[in-house]
């Protein structure tokens, strides 16, 4: 009896860990998955990483850059905008204008050499526009 129970339990364990989707992957059309995962990180903000690439090209290592995004609340999208900017602008000092407690940090706006603003308005005239691309602009004091 114990031998039968052991066999049934063993087969159940094997069956419960089968991953048919993984085993099918080499044989199916993977293009939809490529598109899904390729766009996963940026969701509806697909232009944003392309904008950050332009910002990277216009700045140098060590430059300080503050990020202005359409969502200026942490959980509404600013965290994503800040993290993503930190990733693409590695080597620069990326400064947040909002932190996880939703506190605004105007001192970072003052301290930054550049303002990277994407789909957001910054008062014109006070800054020099260094480059404009993909719905955003890099401003210099």
């Amino acid at each position, binding site marked *: 009896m*114990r*031998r039968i*129970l*052991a*066999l049934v*339990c*063993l087969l*159940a*364990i*094997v069956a*419960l*860990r*089968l*991953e048919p*989707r*993984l*085993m*099918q*992957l*080499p044989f199916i059309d*993977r293009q939809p*998955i*490529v598109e899904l*995962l*390729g766009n*996963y*990180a940026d969701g509806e903000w697909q232009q944003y990483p392309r904008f950050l690439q332009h910002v990277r090209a216009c700045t140098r*290592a060590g430059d300080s850059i503050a990020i202005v995004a359409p969502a200026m609340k942490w959980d509404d999208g600013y*965290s994503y905008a800040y*993290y*993503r900017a*930190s*990733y693409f602008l*590695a*080597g620069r000092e*990326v*400064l*947040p204008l909002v*932190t*996880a407690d939703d506190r605004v940090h105007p001192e970072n706006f003052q301290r930054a050499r550049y303002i990277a603003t994407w789909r957001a308005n910054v008062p014109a005239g006070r800054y020099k526009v260094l480059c404009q691309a993909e719905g955003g602009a890099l401003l210099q004091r």
Partner: protein
Amino acid sequence: MTAALVATLSMTVLGLPVALALDRRARGPLLLGAAFLYGSGVVFAVLLGLSILHIRWTIVIVAIVNLAVCVAAAVLARRPARETRAATRQLKPHWLDLATLLTMTGFAFYATIAPLWEWDFWAIWGMKARVFLEHGGIDWRFLESRWNSYVHPDYPLLVPLNFDFVTLLQGGWSDRWLGVLSIAWAAALLLIVRDLAAREVSPVPAALVAFVVAPIAASRFVGIAEGPLIAFGAAAVLFLRRAALFDDPAAWRHGAVLLGLAASVKNEGIALIVSVAIAMLFVRRRDVLRLWPAVAIAAPWLILRATHDLPTDIASGSVFERVLARMPHAAEIASLVTRTLYHPFFWAALLLGFLIVPAARRREAFVLLVTAIQLAFYLATYFATPNDPRWHIATSWSRLTEQLAVPITFVVVLMLAKTAAGVEQSPDAEARPVEP
């Protein structure tokens, strides 16, 4: 892709003499799997060492130091062996291994299907790697900055520094093919699991156990530290189990070193050292000091993070107050972890396995204890976390339980296979291959 493949191959070659220095008898899949894991560890140690010495990373310097380590390990490996046992016997493949191979092929497609997409990759593991690459070494100012606490500055650095090795080889940052490393970590663990299982049971159950753990080793969280933690941690526990059961000196060395490397991947790996040490106190008290290499490998990062005052979020503020405040909500936390358990029927089947073969509980006490203690640490974290426990459980519990799944699955599948084949489960019995 070429750089990622060359890096993987280089790490395996680098790790070969290390694996042989630890275990002259190692051959076949075990040697190959262990070689990659040790190569991954060597790359981490070399890049960390260069950073401590303020030597800027370049591919030439890194290659020279890696080669020096490789030669030193090769010299050690050539010393006459003190152990007289014969080399590992030839492992017999079985057609069931094709199913594991198919799972891994699917994972290889998945892990490299697109530039790495996980939030934790580009906000933590890949982020650090990219920043360090720009800096030419570990950027302590970045880790210490109050604006960057989201990167978990206290996390050990094996994974980011392995990414840096690949990107140094390819001459610049690209996250397109870094998933190759995730495949290699998973494959290395499976080779070790398959070989260790084959020493105790016949090819059918040995192939079955590799097949069952393949989807766990092939962590769906590509590009973050889950996969390598599962690889190093599970390999360490399985070697130490073997060491404790069969008095195998080489398994002690493998287990202790791999445990130290698990602690270099993630904080859970540091907790695993404690869990293993406590479990060892119960099952082999006199041998607990043989784990010293694990502590020695983990120590440099622990000292560095203390001297740089890198904060650990769980330990921030008043932990005691948070734990006290959440005690009345223990039932709610228990209910949440039960509801969000990944593959609940699989875990139920594992538990049932222990009920079916009660004699195995004593024999497998080490793995059971390690799993239970580590689980207790994880649950305690939900009482201590400064975050909302509901959010913390929802975002971590499935990952944490997968971290623990390989060793317990290994022992349950093996003991069920032995019982089903009619091999007596004596707590003190020397394991022997089961004929099909």
